[in-house]
């Protein structure tokens, strides 16, 4: 068996493949064999390096050389110079844009990485079921510092200075929230962690609770210290059994160590945490609804004010923050407000975790500094669009958000820019759509969701969303009119303007943002009775191109409704009245004779 002395890692990400990394790989491998080095040097493709704009990438191990923009014809030089002679190919080295220096060892070029993991610092690193590993990574040091060296006011001041804003979507300054709750006088107060992550397509909070539950526990205790609460509650989705399990283990371990319970670290501070389970209601992500749910009621929101900071769980002042917000807290204490505030943009500090999903190559969990552009996220971290298709939109903010398009690709991501662009940060779902996605259908998909999840308390959300959905359905069926589009817009604005809680106040966003950005698609559905991306079944027609049809009868035999007529070896015809648009004929035709009109 061979013992390789060197490895050449060729990026096999979609971005690099598009710039001929496959040919490069081929050239490198044949070059190595030609030189008789196949037992010494291994050539491999890897996943995306997240540096697609400089692709293709070749990384050499063990010396960590990082070549960028390598062309297939460069293979020979790399083998000849670097592998045989041991001299790095200078012209292919990465140039630091700031210093214009060439970087020889990629260990020293960490800054090319677009991601920075703060909230996710321990995810995928420590064993979440072992408190010792958390402690080894500075765990509970922040709590210790706060309890022994800082007054609650100082901690709050530090949180305010850090600029941390709520990561659940609202973006309310965390330090300020703590300060308000601290100012509310009561015999009992509560710290609540909102872990009712409900956006379809978002799983950041789940990942943090599964990968680093102690960071949330520690932060809740710190918050308790600041607002003078001795009790914490985690409201978590029942659909997250693993996160619940890990959180339970973590709470147990923290209690055993005395990091929860009475007289924590000998400071006289008491704090403990209980779990409360959600039961499948998206609206419970709204804090007043969440509190009612914890009290054993229907998860219906109530009007604010009074805010939970003044009157919350059981009528007591309650500080509600979400999982990711809490996960940031210990690091901020440990590293200081200035450090945290140095990351991000002017008004949005730190990082944001996104669940990148949809038609993108590297589906996954990413954490990026505020201010990164969508282009960087999609093309460099996400590795571009699946199957090389054309990017169409990215949906952020879940059912409350909107669709961002090509023109927003270079907008820096932060709370305010996303709102200005007609979407919102939301909790961090980021769903990428390609040319095959019909934006009217996407708007309808979200409205389906809102209609399902509306609590029904206020009229505009209960009935308005239903009507919006019905109009969209009409348009998708090709039965819409220009008047419907006008109605859609007016109703969207009224539902936003008049709904009781955040759910209804944002639910029309997917409609409005698609109306704004993809008006042509709406027009095509309404005026031409066509769905440009071919998604709306009712607007499709399957036809057989006579020139391509050889009369093999495959389509007719597979049609479930016998809508296709034709003699063997004769041209076949689809009866449009009978066709149910299942697409079976198109799938079975080997001669590309079936097409969609």
């Amino acid at each position, binding site marked *: 068996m061979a013992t390789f002395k060197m490895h050449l890692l060729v990026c096999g990400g979609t971005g690099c493949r598009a710039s001929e990394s496959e040919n490069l790989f081929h050239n490198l491998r044949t070059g190595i064999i030609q030189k008789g080095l196949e037992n010494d040097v291994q050539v491999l493709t890897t996943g995306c390096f997240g540096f697609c704009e400089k692709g293709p990438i070749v990384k050499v191990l063990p010396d960590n050389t990082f070549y960028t923009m390598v062309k297939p014809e460069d293979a020979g030089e790399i083998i000849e110079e670097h592998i045989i002679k041991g001299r790095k190919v200078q012209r292919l080295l990465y140039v630091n844009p700031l210093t214009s220096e060439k970087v020889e060892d990629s260990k020293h070029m960490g800054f090319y990485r677009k991601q920075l993991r703060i909230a996710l610092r321990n995810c995928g690193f420590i064993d979440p079921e072992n408190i010792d590993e958390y402690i080894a990574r500075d765990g509970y*040091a922040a709590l210790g510092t706060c309890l022994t060296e800082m007054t609650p006011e100082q901690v709050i001041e530090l949180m305010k200075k850090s600029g941390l804003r709520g990561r659940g979507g609202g973006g309310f300054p965390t330090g300020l929230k703590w300060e308000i709750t601290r100012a509310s006088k009561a015999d009992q107060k509560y710290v609540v962690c909102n872990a009712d992550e409900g956006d379809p397509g978002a799983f950041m909070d789940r*990942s*943090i609770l599964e990968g680093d539950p102690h960071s949330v526990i520690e932060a809740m205790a710190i918050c308790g210290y600041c607002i003078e609460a001795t009790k914490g509650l985690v409201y978590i989705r029942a659909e997250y059994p693993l996160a619940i399990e890990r959180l339970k283990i973590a709470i147990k371990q923290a209690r055993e160590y005395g990091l929860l319970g009475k007289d924590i*670290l000998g400071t006289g501070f008491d704090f403990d945490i209980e779990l409360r389970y959600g039961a499948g209601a998206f609206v419970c992500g709204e804090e007043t609804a969440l509190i009612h749910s914890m009290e054993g009621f229907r998860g219906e929101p109530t009007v604010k004010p009074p805010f939970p900071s003044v009157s919350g769980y059981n009528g007591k002042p309650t500080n509600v923050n979400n999982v990711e917000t809490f996960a940031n807290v210990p690091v901020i204490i440990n590293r200081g407000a200035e450090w945290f505030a140095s990351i991000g943009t002017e008004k949005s500090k730190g990082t944001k975790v996104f669940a990148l999903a949809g038609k993108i190559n590297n589906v996954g969990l990413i954490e990026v500094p505020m201010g990164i552009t969508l282009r960087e996220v999609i093309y460099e971290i996400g590795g571009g669009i699946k199957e090389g298709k054309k990017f169409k939109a990215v949906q952020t903010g879940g059912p409350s958000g909107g669709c961002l398009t090509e023109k927003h690709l270079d907008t820096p991501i932060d709370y305010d820019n996303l709102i200005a662009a007609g979407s919102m940060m939301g909790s961090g779902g980021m769903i990428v759509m390609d040319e095959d996605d019909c934006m009217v259908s996407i708007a309808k998909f979200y409205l389906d969701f809102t209609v399902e999840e509306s609590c029904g308390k206020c009229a505009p959300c209960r009935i308005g969303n239903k009507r919006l959905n019905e109009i969209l359905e009409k348009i998708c069926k090709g039965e819409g009119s220009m008047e419907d589009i006008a109605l859609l817009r007016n109703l969207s604005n009224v539902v936003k303007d008049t709904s009781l809680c955040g759910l209804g106040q944002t639910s029309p966003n997917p409609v409005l943002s698609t109306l704004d950005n993809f008006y042509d698609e709406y027009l095509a559905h309404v005026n031409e009775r066509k769905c440009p991306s071919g998604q709306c079944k009712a607007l499709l027609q399957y036809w057989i191109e006579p020139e391509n049809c050889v009369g093999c009868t495959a389509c007719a035999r597979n049609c479930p409704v016998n809508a296709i007529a034709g003699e063997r070896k004769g041209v076949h015809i689809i009866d449009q009245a009978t066709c149910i648009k299942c697409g079976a004929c198109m799938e079975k035709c080997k001669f590309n004779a079936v097409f969609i009109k």
Partner: protein
Amino acid sequence: MTKIKSLNDLRAIKASVEAKMNLRERSDAPEKLVQVKVAMATCGIASGAKAIMDFMVNELDKRQIPAVVSQTGCMGYCFAEPTIEVTVPGKEPIVFGYVNEKKADQIIEKYIKNGELVEGIIPVNYESIESK
């Protein structure tokens, strides 16, 4: 477990655990252990991470390779689940994606035993707070 009664207690625990963790990670330490971390969040488990974890534990033992196999949270590479991170003493940690039993077997036989890489490497594409 004994209770941690003060900040100093906490620091002592940190120091000792850190030392232990370094021991198993640092290459120049005499106890050379291979470290395998399996991403065991929901999507990892859903794609079969548990079986991979069991496989690694059993097989490394059977093949008499001194190693520590532990679970960890989501590494973020959901597209490539199950993912595992392998740290061979003296080398950088490497993340392998799309690991099935066949791939796991290759990782042990080729990479852990011989330093030969196998397909499915996921380059780490983020910065940790330590470097910032």
